């Protein structure tokens, strides 16, 4: 009890502490209430929502969820997103790690310049590349394919991945590679058998950051994918919303369905998500 009180006083007294708690509660409400509201909406039907949009559904219509799942194409959208994102991340990690290792451990004249050039493309907003990339994908028959989309994702996410991995590889003591070379290992083997396993934390970071970014990616997907059967999740949500239009209850259920997988993953792996996202921007 005493230590509790002491902590209180250290932090500015009762009033300040109370104000602080209120503010934090307020912020929590601000952050969370939109999501809570959609959830309550998803358990009502449209008429009820229009009449009393904020009431707690005493008679929850779980049927909204089954309706949406079976009449919409959500399962296909999840699969499509999974393929595009999975492929993109796999290629990204391999290609990015190789390049990052070269920049970190095999410097040559001009390597710094090349790295800066690649890194500079982080500044490029999608719209600058949109039209020519569209033409490119058309030319190589990659338009309207999830593979083509995944390749675009790789190119766009490479700079950040290389940046993160380069910092990481640079920290690995040179003696490790030296020792392996003494044993007669070639560079390629050193890279795959020694460096990559050590880089797992950085890879894990890249995996999580890109998963979140690409799972929700929209502008490239909406221009490069036209077939219904190939829609990724964000595209699917847009279409779904257009289909049910005035049916607010089903619309809300559809929205909740679209975010549940990521939220569930997050709830179980929250530490990893948070550490992953923050590892990229904090050094030392």
């Amino acid at each position: 009890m005493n230590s509790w009180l002491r902590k209180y006083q250290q932090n500015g007294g009762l009033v300040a502490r109370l104000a602080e708690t209120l503010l934090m509660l307020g912020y929590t409400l601000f952050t969370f209430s939109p999501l809570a509201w959609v959830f309550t909406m998803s358990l009502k039907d449209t008429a009820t929502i229009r009449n009393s949009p904020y009431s707690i559904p005493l008679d929850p219509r779980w049927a909204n969820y089954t309706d949406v799942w079976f009449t919409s194409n959500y399962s296909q959208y999840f699969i499509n997103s999974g393929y595009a994102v999975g492929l993109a991340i796999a290629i990204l990690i391999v290609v990015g790690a190789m390049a990052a290792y070269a920049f970190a451990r095999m410097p040559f004249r001009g390597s710094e310049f090349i790295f800066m050039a690649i890194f500079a493309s982080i500044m490029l907003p999608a719209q600058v590349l949109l039209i020519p990339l569209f033409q490119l994908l058309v030319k190589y028959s990659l338009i309207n394919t999830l593979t083509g989309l995944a390749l675009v994702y790789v190119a766009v996410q490479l700079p950040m991945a290389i940046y993160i991995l380069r910092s990481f590889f640079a920290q690995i003591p040179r003696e490790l590679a030296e020792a392996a070379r003494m044993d007669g290992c070639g560079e390629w083997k050193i890279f795959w058998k020694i460096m990559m396993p050590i880089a797992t934390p950085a890879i894990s970071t890249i995996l999580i950051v890109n998963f979140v970014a690409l799972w929700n990616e929209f502008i490239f997907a909406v221009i490069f994918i036209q077939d219904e059967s190939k829609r990724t999740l964000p595209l699917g949500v847009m279409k779904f919303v257009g289909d049910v239009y005035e049916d607010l209850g089903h619309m809300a259920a559809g929205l909740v369905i679209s975010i549940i997988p990521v939220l569930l993953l997050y709830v179980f792996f929250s530490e990893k998500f948070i550490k992953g996202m923050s590892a990229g921007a904090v050094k030392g």
Partner: protein
Amino acid sequence: MDNENGFFGRLGTRLTLAAMVLFTACAAAPAAAAEKITMWSHWADEQNKKDFVMEAVKRFKDKNPGFDVEVVWYQKPQLITALTTSFQAGSGPDIFYLEPAITGAFPPFVDNGFMYDIGKQVDALIEPWAYPFAKKGNMTYLLPLEAYMPVLYYNKDIFKRAGVTLPADGKVDTDAFKDIVAKTKAAGVTPFSAGTMDRDWAGSLVTESVLLRFIGQDKWQNIPTGKTAWTDPDVVAGLKYIEDLVKAGAYSQGVSSIKLGESHGLFFGGKYAMFPMRTFFGGRAFVPVEKGGMAPDFPLGIMDFPVVKGGKANDLTYMQVGGSYGVSAKSKNPAKAAELIALMGTPDMAAMWMDKVKGQTGVKADATAANDPYFKMLGDATKGLKPLPGPMELGMDSSYRDVFYKTSTALVAGHMNADAMVKQMEEARAKVKK
């Protein structure tokens, strides 16, 4: 390897990726050998029009057992983007919804060689007045299924409550119309329901019809070409009239944040007195209430736009072909696709269109709809009106049209007054290549 990162380690990724690839491979396994016709259409949220189209699809499948038809429904903006990108990519559906090239609402597919001539299958089905919209040169590129014109729907109960009585001939002059707006406002409702969030033309409906009556046919038809100046006194008078209506509270301030479907629903909900809308209104009105439709006992009335005292254009309105279907030039089964479209245009299907959707059509129909109360009301409201090709922005180039839509919306939302709109439209007009 280390397990410190749990499922998200490299092994986890590789497993997930492998699973996904397997999934997709299975999903992409070739379907049965039936031939397929793909169809992309608007009207994702208009159930009666969907039912109509699916009836035609059913008839086609009955006649052609070896064919499968896949219909994908879109909202119009998404449809336009999907069509544009897929045609430029060299792919696209066999059949698709489009609106006549002349309106500029859709990209000029026919001008760019993307359409297949369906004249053989549908020429005999089209109403003569609709030919100009369906043909380009010698080619018939679409079936003009939906036709529309602008009218003012109103709520009879609200009018009664507000003490509004319409003259016997239904022609309300501009002053009387202002009076209606004032009376309905005093009765505690918003006079006009309108929403431009997902359709930028919806704010210009009253403006363009009013302008037609103020400035007459010649000047109205020369607005898109850039010949008619916005500083013309008749144009200014028309815009100032709209400004007066807006100042009297005719529109809700939230016009730009209401969607088209929502604006229908708000009118059906009974808190709005009038609803300026084109006659494809039926697609959203005559569906079950749970889907956003109008209650069957809704006190619907239809009236014409106000007339100008001493005006020379009081008997003019416009008519246009709306939702239509065409066949892609790249289709693998163009003749069969055309056959499907032709099935939509048989006289009995056209009659079904009018009955189910309560909409007008550019296809010859059995004259069975004459006794429908809705069509009677529509006929009465538009009696004696001569339709020009419209709407007003027909033929405007994209930037000019964009400015027109945006400024009309701003005018009715109260963000802009008539003089500001004139100024901005004049600036845009200067850029039009005449």
